[in-house]
């Protein structure tokens, strides 16, 4: 025991023989160790709800998040145009305020064929803007660019724009939205066809899969 904690006359075992001290010491040590063990057990049991509470948001499965939301009558999207559409996130709660709103780019290819892109750049999530004349989506943050079909054109993104799953319900265009789209939580949550990372091999600049008018 450190010197400064010892108060003369206070310790009851000052008068004991060395053997007695040892005996008392060993029992107290044992009890102290037992109390440590007890606190270890209680602490572990306490940690279960604490850690569980903390990790709550992380344990939800991505595929179960989200729902179908309507973007309005399909007829309101002109064929051949790409338009910005706002909707309210199906996973928003009261306290989210304006952050519960979401924007997406709707491209109507033909009467029945749509593409709905997340505005979040596949690089680091900044909002991409559509330039109808150059037919490109451009990102203001790090200069990522995408073609009108959402495929990667240039810049730091590894892949094309995130796409929402869509369906035509009666006259209404519906998309499946939930997670904020990132590389790990893609917009169309269950679509497995798109690999997570599509890095073009170095040297092949022109996208091979696109049907370009100048290619014979």
């Amino acid at each position, binding site marked *: 025991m450190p010197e400064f904690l010892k108060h003369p006359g206070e310790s009851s075992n000052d008068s004991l023989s060395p053997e007695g001290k040892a005996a008392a010491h060993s029992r107290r040590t044992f009890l102290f160790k037992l109390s440590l063990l007890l606190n270890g057990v209680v602490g572990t049991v306490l940690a279960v709800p604490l850690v569980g509470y903390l990790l709550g948001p992380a344990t939800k499965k991505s595929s179960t998040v989200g729902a179908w939301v309507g973007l309005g009558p399909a007829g309101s999207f002109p064929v051949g145009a790409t338009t910005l559409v706002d909707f309210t996130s199906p996973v928003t709660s009261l306290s989210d*305020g304006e952050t519960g709103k979401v924007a997406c780019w709707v491209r109507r290819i033909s009467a029945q064929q749509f593409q709905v892109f997340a505005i979040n750049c596949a690089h680091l999530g900044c909002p991409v803007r559509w330039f109808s004349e150059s037919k490109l989506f451009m990102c203001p943050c790090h200069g990522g660019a995408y073609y009108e079909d959402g495929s990667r054109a240039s810049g730091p993104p590894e892949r094309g724009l995130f796409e929402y799953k869509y369906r035509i319900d009666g006259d209404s265009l519906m998309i499946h939205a939930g997670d904020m789209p*990132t590389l790990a939580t893609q917009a169309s949550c269950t679509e497995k066809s798109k690999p997570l990372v599509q890095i073009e091999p170095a040297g092949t600049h022109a996208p091979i899969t696109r049907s370009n008018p100048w290619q014979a």
Partner: protein
Amino acid sequence: MASLKERGTDAAVGLFNWVESRLGLIKPIVAGATHPTPSNNASWWYVFGSAATVLLMLQVVTGVLLALVYSPSANEAWSSLNFLNHNVALGWYLRAIHGWGSDFMIAIVLIHMVQVFLFGAFKFPRELTWIIGVLLLLLTLGMAFTGQVMRFDQDAYWGLGIGASIASRVPLIGAPLVHLILGGPTIGGATLSRFFTLHVFVIPGILLGSAGIHIWLTLFHGVSDWPMPGRLVNKATYVKEYHELAETTGIPFVPDAAWKDAVFAAAIILAVMATAFFFGPFGPGGPPDPTIIQTAPKPDFAFLWIYAVLAFLPPSIETPIMLVVPVLGIVAMLLLPLLNGEGERHWARRPIAVLMVSVIAVSLGVFTRLGTYTPWSPIMNAWTSDPVPPKYLHGRSALEREGAIVLQNKQCRNCHSLDGAGGQRGPALDDIASRLTEDQIIRQVLQGGGNMPAYGNALNPSETKALTQFLETLRGHDLAPAVDASRGLTRTSNLTVPSAPEAK
């Protein structure tokens, strides 16, 4: 009269004794403050640590005051900041001091770190002081990032998006990690709440505790003596040498050395107050509404260099670099005093240390500068505001002028500049025809390449023809047009059969 004075003194001493006999802290603190320190370290170079501590106190006080009004709720935070700016007396000034104080604190912490590094003060026996100092730097940067989120505007919103996107690149646990950071599937109320908790409870708690230990270690080991070339740190003898130095040349830290700390701290606080007064608070910028996409998000000053680096990393190695390099950097800083705890302290005998500081400082400076004007970003409104300069239209044919219209309409100047106006993503077009032949221009425009997207789908043949004809007229100050070196060989009618025997 004398008896009255004596009685007064007696009462004061009595009160002091009463408090100290029950508190037991005043005498140890006085002893610590007046401990002898080697006179050679009573220098203006040794004032940065105490200045950082004083700035931390300023941040705590102004932060508490701001929390009286700030509402950490996603649908009220932005309005409450505007309320602070415009409706609360001196609210704007408190916000300004807190914001500028944060920038000053990062700067002073970095200067403090560089000084300790160059003076070799991290060496034995002060290794743990350095390691906790590295932790304090990271916590300070953590306060800066979470503080930027508190200013719940557009930049804060998209900054969170960038953070989540980086986290999403972590293998295997990317998605749960994103959800853990955001507190849910999207950026919203839960996100702001947890960043508020970090900014107000968690990080400040750890920061204050660590700063306390950091200061205790400084007292425990003494302020490092002034480094001298050739005086090596040796674990066997250093402590003895230091104590001899402190005994022979020692002066009481308070007041003989501390007055410089006090003067510098006062100057720094005054500087924060002045910048806050003249430049005002930071934002808030536009409301955190993700449907307003007419925005170019940017992080605060301290993180601009990261923002710039992220624009230059090649896509194929970006994720590994993003995730691995910061870890390596932090581990290297933590291990520094353990691997290099002895030997020379003076900067003149440590060229690699000086070189490292220089390279890192210049790199941070260059990337921060680039981050202020983002040359890699397309200028999103260039095509609407800047028509092709008239001087590029003089003496042009109708087709070439049509090409100039195509150039403006197709928004080429989002990325290319003409006469100094336009984006810097691609090369300036003022002398493009002196660098590329017509065929090369057509190929580059239609198929893209390098950083340029392909425009084959966005241009019809007549537009392409007009655009190319116009670009062909852009040759800077009448430079020679680029020529295809092999073109001459295709003019077979002009070729003469070389007379081989004569050449020999």
